[in-house]
């Protein structure tokens, strides 16, 4: 149950962008969401999540703002910027190509 970045490098960025593409989320919610959607297979550690979030923010793909959570606490919410939306599409297409290619290789019967 490693970090997603252990599986395929660069995938964490894609997972984060995808997770906040519908609505702004704070770091905790992003980690929980990825865990939940992946049926508990992907567990994003804090140690890789926050550096990734900050890096994406510095690159201008995501924007941060402070807001109250449902529990009434202040939290830093992340949302996609317009450039981030384009980037997400790019990375999705790239992921699609890559995963299809890998599937072709590992599922072939001719060794």
């Amino acid at each position: 149950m490693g970090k997603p970045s252990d599986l395929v490098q660069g995938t964490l960025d894609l997972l984060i962008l995808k997770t906040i593409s519908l609505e702004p989320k704070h770091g905790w919610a992003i980690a929980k969401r990825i865990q939940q959607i992946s049926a508990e297979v992907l567990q994003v550690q804090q140690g890789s999540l926050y550096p990734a979030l900050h890096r994406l923010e510095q690159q201008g793909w995501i924007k941060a703002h402070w807001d109250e959570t449902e529990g009434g606490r202040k939290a830093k919410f992340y949302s996609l910027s317009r450039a981030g939306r384009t980037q997400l599409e790019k990375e999705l297409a790239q992921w699609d190509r890559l995963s299809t290619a890998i599937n072709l290789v590992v599922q072939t019967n001719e060794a």
Partner: protein
Amino acid sequence: MRWIDKRLLRFRALFSRARVEQELDDELRFHWQQQIEENLAAGMSPEEAHYAAQRVVGDLAQLKDECRDTRGVAWIETSVHDLRYGWRMLRKSPVLTIVAILSLAIGIGANTTIFTIIDALMLKMLPVKNPSELVQFLHFFQEQRSSFSYPWYEHFREHSHSFAGVFAVSGINALKLRES
């Protein structure tokens, strides 16, 4: 406007450092508290919940460092620190500082002076209107190059019709005349 966002973030990281740090602290603390609450909800005792959350969070100082590194302003901060340190050291030993500054000043000054002279004498073309129309008179005596006497020069000057002017120099080798 991605590049503006990026510049603004950089700017903020440099000039509102305390606030950016506070926000990083708050953000990670929020995560930690959420973890504790989840642990409590799972039936842990408050102590266990704290301890377990601590374990999940791991090395907080290192995590913060990794987040700071993404800001891309570390090299500016380090340079400023270095400059401040250098300034403090210089003020600590004023005599050494003055000697060092004087040595540099004299060294640079001497170099500049020498170069200015060499530039004027050897590198620059003569300050005349059409350097390509210059003609140089040479005088050989028994296959040895020798000089004209001053009356000779005066004679040339008075009787020349083909030239706009005539001038004489001594130490011709120090002047750069392009032959063409």
